[in-house]
């Protein structure tokens, strides 16, 4: 399947300005019936690490919006996904 994540952008509003974020990876979970997206505005945190934001999307919800991920199990899953991507490299 053609991977066109390179072309996807997410807009982030920072200090009244729109910043384009690169989409790094996406995945679904049948357990939560949600989709997840990781994206970055390529900023570096105070600890000199690159910031990656993770949001979820509920396709069954009524609004078209990305939501924060707060559930511990979901966070663990995100970690697993990152590890998997890294290990496959």
């Amino acid at each position: 399947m053609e991977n066109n994540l390179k072309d996807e952008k997410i807009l982030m509003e920072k200090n009244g300005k729109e910043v384009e974020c690169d989409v790094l990876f996406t995945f679904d979970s049948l357990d939560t019936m949600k989709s997840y997206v990781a994206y970055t505005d390529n900023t570096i945190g105070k600890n000199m690490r690159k910031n990656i934001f993770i949001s979820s999307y509920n396709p069954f919800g009524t609004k078209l919006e990305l939501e924060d991920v707060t559930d511990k199990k979901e966070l663990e899953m995100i970690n697993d996904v990152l590890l998997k991507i890294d290990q496959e490299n």
Partner: protein
Amino acid sequence: MDNIIFEEEIVTEVVYEGSIPLDNRLTPRQQKRKIFNLLKKENIPVIKESEYEITFEQPDDDQSIKFKVTHIYNKKIPYRITKEEVYQGTYILDGIRMTPEDQRQQVFNLMREDGFVIENEDDYEIGYEGVEDNNGISDTQVTRFIVSKIKKEKLTDKEYEAISNDQNKEIKNLYDEMVALREEILKTTEKEKVTELSSKVSEVTEKVDTIIENRIQNYGYFEEKINEYNVKISELEASLQEYINSYEESYEMMKELMNSSEITDVQEKEHQKERINEKSLSIKKEIEKAKKEISSLKAQRTRLMKDYETAKALEISAEDYNEIISSLRKKDILNAILEQKGLEEVLSTSSKDRTPYQKQQIKEAKEEIIKELAKLKKEDERQSVLSSIEALYGIELQKVIKNGRERVIVINKKSYDNIINNSKKLPEKIIKNPDITINYKPGDVPEDLQEVFKSEERKDNKDKFTIFHDEEDEEKLYTRKPVFEKFHINPIGEEVRIEGTASYGIKKEDADYIENNANNSESPYVVEHKKAKVVQVDHSPIEEFVEVDNNTSKEPLEENNVQERKDLKDKYVIYHSEENNDLLYATVPVFERFNITPEGEEVRIKGIASYGIKKEDVDDIEKNASNDYSPYIVEHETVKVEKQVIEPLKDIVEENQEVPKEEEIHENISNASKGLIDRITIYREMNQSNKFYARKPVFERFNVETIGEPFRISGVLCYEIDVDDVKKIAANSNNDYSPYIVSYEDVQASREILEKEPDVMEKIRVEQEPTKNHLEASNIEVNPEFKEELKEKKVNYNIIHKCPYQVKAAVDFFDRLSKKLLSSEESKSQKEQFKENLNDLTDEELDLLVTEYRSDAFGSELNSYTKGLAYNRLKEYGYDTIHKINDMIKEETVSLSSLIKGLKEVEEKEQTEQDEDNIISLEEERNDKIGKASSSIQVIIDAKKELERLLNCHIRDLEEKFKEKAQELEFTKSRDNDSLVDSLKYQVENFTRSLKNALINHNDISIVQNFLGLESCYDEDFDHRGDIVGRRSIGTIYFPLLEKFLPVNKNNELKEMMEEETHDYGEEEKSKVR
């Protein structure tokens, strides 16, 4: 042999050409470093960086710059030198003195005259034969010269190797020759011969030296090794440089952030931190030591308090009490008394194996003994406790002590052998029975036999017992508790602290006794005397210790930490009755936590159900709270104890009502006036008047516990309820402001018993549904650039799961995100299965879901998708239920209006009817209609309550939807309670109160009257100007419910009816209302 010479030549070799990105921030040095790193990456060996020259070209663009790396080095090149004689001649040196150079030119001139072509004079060598004068050539001498042409040829690799081999062979030959010559010299005795041979050796040696000097060496191996080292050194230098650079960068960054004095401050702070940490550690040790002391003091204090209380209760002095306790502390004495009291069997069981009952028996017996001894002591203070024991229990104490049970000490075989071997050294009395077990008799010197035999080999390791002398009064002796235990002697006085450890007074004779036994070589112990400061234990009240007790943390460094620990401890409060301080109470958690059985009936303390607790139980709880590591603390509080008297059903109704606050009363009335009076149904077993059942919500509402397994009564899920709980619920129901009324229903004993409460969620849950602990991800799609970045492992990441900014994505991106998820087969099958499960739910189960599974349950049990489906199903059910309720109310209201109309007609007929039989018949008809109207009203009230329950289901969004839907219904059009004028509010309260009474008393006519009255209050068109009992002379009487369903507008008739019926209120009710 060819003459070989080596000449050094400068070699210039371009080793790399490339380009690097332009970066003005880099210093030339950093650039060079970058290029060398690049060469390293490209596997181009750099042996000596100083031999490399980097040249840059002009940049092509703004992005990069080209460069060239040239290796410049010296190389030894071998040349073969050959000589060829090309000319010879003589001449008479008859001219002036010539320099060698002039002489050389003279020769070349001669050669040219002979037709020689000389291209390069340097290629020729001229040798002179005959006289040669370094100071010049004489005027008369003839000299001969030979001119040779020198040829210098660079050797090929093969030639180089061949020559090298020849040289080696030659060296070997010369070496052999030399060895032979040396042997010959050794054999020769003739001096001359030796001189000749020596001269030959010198020649050979000279030849060897010449060859070696000109030898072509194979440097390859060494060069390779040197290169390796050079590479390693170069690498290390490079990484060192990186560190230096990184350090310098960090330092520069730090300088940007801080000035030099701040940097010094930071460094100083670091040092300080280390010093503070060391200090903290030592303080920590001190704190721990202090804590141990506090803990020990607290335990002692608790003991003393207990003793004090007991002594007080026994009406004897503390000294007398101590004497009794000290005597009973001697196990043999206590056991002898307990045996006298018939507890031999209990005593024969080891204390570990005793049952709780046996322990209780001993405890009670001990208390009894103390009481008995205290009584005797009270009667005659001068009599000692020991003589009282002898007198009271007929025990000869001397005998008891002498004939105490033998203590068996098991020792290993080696020790036993030692005993036998060393028996001569031992005091005879110890060895009584040379068996594996050694007898020990109480009263004898309690030496530890194993220790005795070890004493020989460990003189310096003997147990050391210290006798402390009070530094203020040396006659006062003290020692530690283990000494008393070891030597079976009693301490005197109260506990004191010596060097922070609990100690007790010891009698002089006891101290001497211990010391005497230490004075032999076999003694396992030594006695030491020491002067010490004796600190008396403080017996101050508990409060003074509270703060300290709370600091019993194992990590006491920081105050916060201490505070945290304090908060972490469970607190249990023991309540003392105001009236009698000895009556102790505690709340249920205390009994549950310590597995104690409460005593007596329930009482109320600060409105909380509490029970009596035994003093000994309190003591036990406190005892365990008095150490450092106890997870709880105990506090005491004197409070007012309210007795909770459980009276028979009817009698308690008035007395035990809990009077709610005014606002609560109003709220209850407000609800009740909307027809929302809760009707609590208690099912009563048909033939057993003390067996009751109720629905689950009743238990939850009144926070009472269910009994046994669930079962269904007429399809309704019920549990058995305790008769006392029924009484309590009923007690609070029958008042004006109670939000509920209780009704009883007799049921048959036969019912369907369920093993467990039905779990609706389990029924609808789909396999692989989301209760799993580990969530699975699928359809992972990765941006190749991110993949690459991960692969390079150059970047570390922060994962932020709560984005602090507002984010947006294109609609098609959302589509793309959800497409795979929505179209997956698994998702589809789950969806179908879940839908099926939802459709299979009965109304009862749906009702349970709506009313008992709050939104939280949905949140954790269902995922967003299934939650959506469940939401839809519940919405469907809710709408359906609202319609059903609407229909039901509508039907009942129509029936009610018809009944009221009929009622009016009957009453009219009654007024004109003369015939008594007919009057009776009409009266019966009237009563029948009133009964039916009352039933309809009760159905309407229940239906409204049902609706209210649905409208307050607490399922987010759904609740709002239900409320919205209910607005569309016909019966909801009524005036809001808040919008009522005060006089009307007052009426509403009165009607509500009367309606409740009527419902409780099953007074049908009153139910009808008050219901109609209440309904009229909510009519917007109704203008009340009459008095409170409804003499409404002005305005339109309007029944919001009735008006809708009456076949004709009967307002006037109803008005009249209301006027008449409200007269039936009765005088009592009226006066109450007024």
